[in-house]
């Protein structure tokens, strides 16, 4: 398997922008969709468009099967112990909100504490903040050091008798460094504190085994993982999901409904209120099948070369300041590089790169506390997928140099 073969599976990559070949380096925000994902979505939308879990007719049966097959696929992907531990959501954000609300309702009280890290995406900060405000709880923050690594030595001090949950990102969408989540989970569990892992980037770049990690919750999005947008997963240990109250009411999440009392459906439907985004959720299966293809030595080697090339180029450029600087061999760094250029505004660079055909991200990247930590108003970020080529990386480096020279 090589990059060329992978690339052919993504029809979106053929397009041109402003007459130039598209170089898509914004994969950490949204990856492109593999052909099999598009085919699945189309097939269900055309042949099996029908509300799931309800009607007895053939179309409904097919749609339900495709949806539930995707759940099995996610279960295997995460190595979850039970399929009812897999709850479909509209994305990482809605999964975190679900846990923050339902776990908060059940277990967080006035004076309790919730711990997040400085490296979190807003989606793993604000839901906890809302819950803390509602409950009169306190949000505490584990900081990162100058290289972007979590200050692990401060974790123990942050965990108290009142800590009810710790929410930590597997890989920051800005720093691109794999956090030692297994270690964090172990330390938290030693104090009887459950852990939610934001896997929006982690599920894309790491092999995740929730049983080995022993995490209590693991959440991720489909749209960064080559699946359709509007899809997401909440993995939660059965023991938690069973005792957490529903997040939203209505649809197939009920057992029996009466005006005096309503009972709820068993897991996972208890947390899947309303008509689900079934055609999109079903694409998680072909997306995961595709990810399994990526576990190919030749391909991994090719992708690593590109990552190393970009890292070396950015690190050696005196005008560039990189955030999330890997230590040692760089194995804990994913192909995601956020940086600033001295004397140049990130947005100017992004605008010029866009006109050169290169799609990058600029701004605060939904991580304002991290921007403040590094005393910048924003950064430029490139994030690669296994379909990005060395030619594209070399072209980007040339374009970046040209853009900087235009602006300085």
């Amino acid at each position: 398997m090589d990059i060329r073969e992978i690339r052919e599976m993504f029809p979106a990559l053929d397009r041109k922008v402003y007459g130039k070949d598209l170089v898509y380096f914004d994969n950490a925000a949204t990856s492109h969709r593999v052909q099999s994902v598009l085919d699945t979505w189309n097939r269900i939308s055309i042949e099996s468009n029908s509300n799931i879990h309800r009607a007895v007719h053939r179309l409904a049966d097919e749609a339900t099967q495709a949806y539930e097959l995707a759940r099995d696929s996610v279960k295997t992907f995460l190595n979850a112990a039970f399929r009812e531990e897999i709850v479909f959501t509209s994305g990482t954000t809605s999964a975190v909100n679900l846990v923050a609300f339902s776990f908060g309702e059940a277990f967080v009280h006035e004076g309790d504490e919730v711990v997040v890290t400085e490296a979190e995406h807003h989606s793993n900060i604000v839901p906890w903040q809302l819950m803390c405000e509602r409950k009169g709880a306190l949000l505490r923050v584990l900081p990162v050091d100058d290289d972007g690594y979590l200050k692990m030595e401060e974790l123990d001090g942050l965990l108290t008798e009142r800590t009810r949950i710790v929410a930590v990102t597997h890989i920051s969408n800005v720093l691109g460094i794999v956090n030692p989540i297994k270690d964090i989970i172990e330390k938290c569990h030693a104090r009887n504190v459950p852990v939610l892992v934001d896997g929006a980037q982690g599920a894309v770049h790491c092999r995740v085994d929730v049983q080995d990690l022993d995490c209590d919750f693991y959440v991720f999005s489909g749209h960064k993982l080559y699946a359709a947008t509007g899809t997401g997963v909440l993995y939660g240990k059965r023991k938690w999901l069973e005792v957490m109250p529903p997040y939203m009411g209505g649809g197939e999440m009920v057992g029996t409904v009466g005006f005096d009392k309503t009972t709820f459906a068993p897991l996972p439907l208890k947390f899947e209120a309303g008509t689900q985004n079934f055609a999109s959720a079903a694409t998680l299966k072909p997306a995961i099948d595709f990810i399994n293809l990526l576990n190919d030595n030749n391909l991994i080697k090719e992708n690593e070369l590109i990552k190393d090339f970009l890292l070396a180029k950015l690190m050696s450029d005196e005008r560039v300041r990189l955030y999330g600087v890997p230590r040692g061999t760089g194995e804990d760094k994913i192909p995601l590089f956020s940086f600033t250029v001295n004397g140049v505004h990130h947005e100017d660079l992004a605008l010029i790169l866009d006109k050169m055909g290169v799609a990058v991200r600029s701004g605060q990247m939904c991580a304002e506390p991290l921007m403040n930590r590094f005393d910048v108003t924003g950064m430029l970020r490139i994030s690669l997928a296994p379909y990005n080529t060395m030619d594209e990386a070399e072209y980007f480096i040339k374009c970046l140099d040209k853009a900087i020279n235009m602006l300085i």
Partner: protein
Amino acid sequence: MTLREAENAVIEEFSMYDEWLDKYEYLIELGKALKDYPESSKTDDRLIKGCQSRVWLDYEFRDGKIWFNADSDAIITKGIISLLIGIYSERTPQEILSSDFSVVEKIGLKENLSPTRANGLVSMIAKIRNIAECNL
């Protein structure tokens, strides 16, 4: 030069560039040429909301005319605000309000900028109009 003539001059100037990178070069030059804006005037009430980059717009009302001064931390945005100031500064509030501000669409700025940037542009124009209205 009347306001209409100033608008047409900008449209003509922009039409000379086919390539977007050349248009950006031009905006960058305009941005660099904008006169100094005092640090003490970079206050929140002069900050224009809706821009990814920060834009400050200040003015003086003198001799019946509005004299604009602006700054931005991003150079292309600074070029855009410079371009707007070049057209609308040193005009009476009535003159400013007589414009339909279609110049930004005619030079292709609005449609070719990213949505966040386009919002910023809309905010800049709204601020200029607002200042004119307040000084009628």
